[in-house]
């Protein structure tokens, strides 16, 4: 299975929260080097899906295959260990720490191992953070500043650089530009294009169809906890996507709220 170029595949992935069927029977595939978007209305199961494949939550049923092998993620660390990095909307950064500390949070560079009391190699983390930010084309004036003192765009760029610098196999972004201004959004989009050039596969959860059409190869539409369909970005248009999102086949205007 590893030979057919599939990075991530889910079979019958299902998640119930009590009686709420947040995600049902999701069969999803992602090819090597591919950038795909996940779109859908609020409560369609997009974020639930992301939480299952990043190990934040454990699915009620179904299988996840990564790199040809079946995997079960008990925690985000398990997902990270196989090379999946995620950028979450607002829960990934520690405000009171500086940039290198955030980029290396949970995997700090140390001089020698003394368990929790290992001494930090701040120099190495600083240097590698600079490199990571440069690679993703992010400019941040002073890395020693606390994240709290930075703009939303800068914070998101740090989060993305962090994911990009560690992700060997897959990056997942849950609405990375939801809270950003126009310029900042452009910057994040450029980072995503850079990842495409590097051939790192990406799953982008987004509400912004313009962005989706600009950035990805395939669009997976979620509706009411199920996958409503998959469309090739260059063979479809906004109308078709919106029809799938809303469950209506025709008669949706370009100026619907998703566009």
């Amino acid at each position, binding site marked *: 299975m590893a030979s057919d170029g599939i990075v991530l595949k889910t079979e019958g992935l299902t998640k119930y929260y009590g009686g709420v069927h947040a995600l049902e029977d999701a069969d999803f595939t992602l090819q090597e080097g591919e950038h795909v978007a996940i779109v859908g209305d609020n409560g369609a199961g997009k974020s639930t899906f992301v939480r299952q494949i990043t190990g934040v939550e454990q699915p009620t049923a179904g299988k996840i295959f990564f790199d040809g092998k079946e995997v079960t993620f008990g925690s*985000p660390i398990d997902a*990270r260990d196989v090379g999946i990095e995620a950028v979450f909307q607002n*829960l990934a950064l*520690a405000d009171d720490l500086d940039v290198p*500390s955030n980029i290396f949070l*949970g995997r700090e560079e140390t001089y020698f191992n003394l368990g*929790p009391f*290992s*001494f*930090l190699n701040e120099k190495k983390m600083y240097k590698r953070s600079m490199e990571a930010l440069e690679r993703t084309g992010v400019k941040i004036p002073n890395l020693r500043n606390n994240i709290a003192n930075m703009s939303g765009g800068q914070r998101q760029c740090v989060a993305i650089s962090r994911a990009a610098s560690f992700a060997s196999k897959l990056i997942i972004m849950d609405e990375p530009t939801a809270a950003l201004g126009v310029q900042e959004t452009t910057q994040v989009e450029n980072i995503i294009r850079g990842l495409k050039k590097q051939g790192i596969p990406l799953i982008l959860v987004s509400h912004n169809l313009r962005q989706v059409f600009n950035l990805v190869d395939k669009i997976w539409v979620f509706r009411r906890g199920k996958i409503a369909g998959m469309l090739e970005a260059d063979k479809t248009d906004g109308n078709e996507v919106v029809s799938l999102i809303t469950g209506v086949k025709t008669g949706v205007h370009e100026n619907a709220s998703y566009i």
Partner: protein
Amino acid sequence: MAERTVTNQAEPVAAVATVEGGKRQRSHELNALIGLVGIALIFEILGWIFQGQSFLFNTQRLSIIILQVAVVGIIAIGVTQVIITGGIDLSSGSIVGLTAMVAMSFAQVGTYPRAVYPNLTDLPVVIPVLIGLSVGLAAGFINGALIAYTRIPPFIATLGMMVTARGAAKWYTRGQPVSFPTDSFAAIGQGMTPVIIFLAIAALFHVALKYTVYGKHTYAIGSNESAARVSGISVERHLILVYSIAGVLAALAGIVIASRGLTAQAGMGVMYELQAIAMAVIGGVSLSGGRGSIVGTVIGAAIFGVIISGFTFLRLSAYYQEMIMGAIIVAAVVADVYRQRYRTSAR
């Protein structure tokens, strides 16, 4: 007259914390240090006006301030770390009482006929010390485990421990004080030894917080617990570690107090938890977590000591002193809240 001077005292403390709202942020530590110098100078001036003598240039008074601060300061070092994780520890004062009793009961001399354990007297000093520290470790561990795994608020968990540990301290000897320690146990609290212990502990945890993974994770959890969790930090284990350290340090303070007083009573350490929290908050440790430092707490402890000693020096009644301490704690927290608000609005 006394009341007037008193209200003047409380203000600089609040100011220390709020000055920080300036455009180019000065560090909390520097602000606290400026506050310390300011408050000391005010007492110096008031001293010459009302008492006709110097407040600061009096070695005896200075050494009393430093000693007072040192014992509660040891607790404050632990409490600081707990607060940085976004928690609180109300149990430290009771842990002081319990460990003082337990440690002292293993440190009694054989010549005393009514020892708690008549067969276990004249033990080497390490035994009572280790037993005492273990009691604190156990209490801190229970605090941490409750908070990490049952997700009850730290306030409730440690409040429970506060009452329980105090109860245990009274039950231990049915309320009787424990006295007559061996010379080597008594030596722990004599002279300036408590100060040396305080400074050594402060230095140790300053390094741990600033330069180790432990410190980074402590700040990260207080800053954004879910981010810490998603980043792969074992939040539960870390919280247990932090609360255990706080318990051990409270126990250490209990041992020092028992040794210094040559006796242990179940009521020892009452209100120490609040004094320790006040020292931390005055020193710039934020009750909402993520910010603060050991250096700040040490300065906060010094400010606390100067204020208490200053009031005594001005012959202010003990009743006023307690009321004012309460006001200072609230003022420090209010200042912290405003600091938070400034930060969030500035973003």
